[in-house]
């Protein structure tokens, strides 16, 4: 389905977009298999309607949103973002979505809400990869509340002007462009506001390799490979990885005074 009435955003990059085919066939989405080509092949089993997103926890107005009601409530705009995978490759993707902050304001977090936890659907019948124990299902991710409120953080519901394909996290996913891709949880069923830093799926799997922050940082290598450079999909030469994936001007102040080597 073509999404209409799109608003251009000043947060968009003008860099060349990665072809639709690559964006939708080269995916890390372990719920549908661990090979890059698996999600495109297997994600057709995902049923995206009916779908609800429960917004709960330390908020004044918790609500279970029907996905279609959610789509009507918040105006969708285009955001062309760089995506940097922790594995050392990157893309430029035109997402459609709305700021997560809009939803957060609507539910009114209480003083106890310091972090936001995202939970992906857990249903091995629809997500064959969940029949293996490669990760501790369901997939969970988290952000600090100020990161979640940042205007760059969006809930995406489409890409390339189309409804989000299942292999890219349909029907709704978070996109945090200055962090490694795995921080952006897909196919979200629950958004919970909590006081303690939530456990994340990759953090549980390999705590020394995947920290809570996981900001794109060329100076802090992954224990097993360098993060100094990346291969932009479609390009031959590797390019330098930028601090905060090039979004430093907007987000660096979130981490003032923090040791980013320790808080990797």
């Amino acid at each position, binding site marked *: 389905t073509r999404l209409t009435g799109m608003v251009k955003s000043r947060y968009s990059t003008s860099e060349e977009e990665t072809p639709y085919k690559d964006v939708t066939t080269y995916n890390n989405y372990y719920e549908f298999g*661990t090979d890059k080509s698996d999600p495109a092949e297997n994600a057709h089993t995902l049923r995206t309607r009916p779908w609800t997103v429960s917004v709960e926890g330390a908020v004044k107005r918790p609500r279970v949103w029907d996905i279609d009601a959610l789509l009507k409530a918040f105006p969708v705009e285009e955001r062309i973002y760089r995506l940097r995978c922790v594995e050392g490759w990157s893309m430029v993707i035109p997402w459609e979505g709305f700021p997560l902050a809009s939803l957060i304001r609507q539910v009114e977090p209480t003083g106890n809400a310091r972090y936001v936890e995202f939970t992906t659907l857990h249903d091995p019948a629809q997500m064959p990869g969940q029949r293996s124990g490669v990760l501790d299902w369901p997939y969970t991710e988290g952000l600090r509340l100020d990161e979640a409120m940042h205007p760059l953080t969006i809930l995406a519901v489409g890409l390339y002007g189309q409804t989000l394909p299942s292999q890219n996290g349909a029907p709704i996913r978070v996109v945090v462009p200055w962090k490694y891709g795995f921080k952006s949880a897909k196919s979200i069923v629950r958004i919970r506001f909590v006081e303690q830093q939530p456990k994340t799926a990759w953090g549980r799997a390999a705590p020394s390799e995947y920290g809570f922050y996981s900001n794109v940082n060329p100076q802090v290598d992954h224990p097993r490979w360098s993060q100094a450079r990346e*291969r932009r999909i479609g390009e031959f030469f590797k390019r330098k990885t930028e601090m905060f994936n090039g979004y430093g001007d907007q987000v660096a102040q979130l981490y003032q005074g923090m040791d980013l080597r320790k808080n990797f």
Partner: protein
Amino acid sequence: MWNALHSLSLRQTGIAKAALFVAALVPLARLVWLGINDGLGANPIEFITYATGTWTLIGLLVTLAITPLRKFSGWNWLIRLRRMLGLFAFFYACLHFTTYIWLDQFFDMQAVVKDVIKRPFITVGFLAFVLLIPLAATSTTAMMKRLGGRNWQRLHRLVYTIAVLGVVHYWWLVKKDITQPLIYALVLAALLGIRLIFKARVGIPVVMPGHKAELE
């Protein structure tokens, strides 16, 4: 059919060898075909790196399978295929290494040296590749003779170390799902385990008399 395989004439062995030679080139031909037809996916360099690495490992394991296979089946002609299989493993290792140096790092030697020193999975992979070089260099009959059977054999036992390093290289590079490297590790463990059992039972080196005769 089964009995016919028991002893092949020189000519028949030659045919088997030629067939195997062609078969061993299929993975390379596939890569070229996919490359021409835009079939290498969104990240072609990663695809080529994985494919050549995979075929290096398979080549090593198949080479290591020759001796046990020959013992169980009694098909002594199999030994005449071993050198070629080992050289194909080396061939794919060279392609794998070249892909890394050229396509992946584009001759950024500083980055390569840093990688080899700092990243354990690259360290062991690099070591495995370096250790393969003397084996390939001494694979000719002339070199066997120059070294003498015993020395040659000692040197070529390095292949066990190389295969272990190769599997470790794969194991350490995957992000989480170790299914694939585990399969290679189990096959390798079986192939090495069989040798230990043979050694313990018979109390003689693994190389068969027929092979020795060939060396002399």
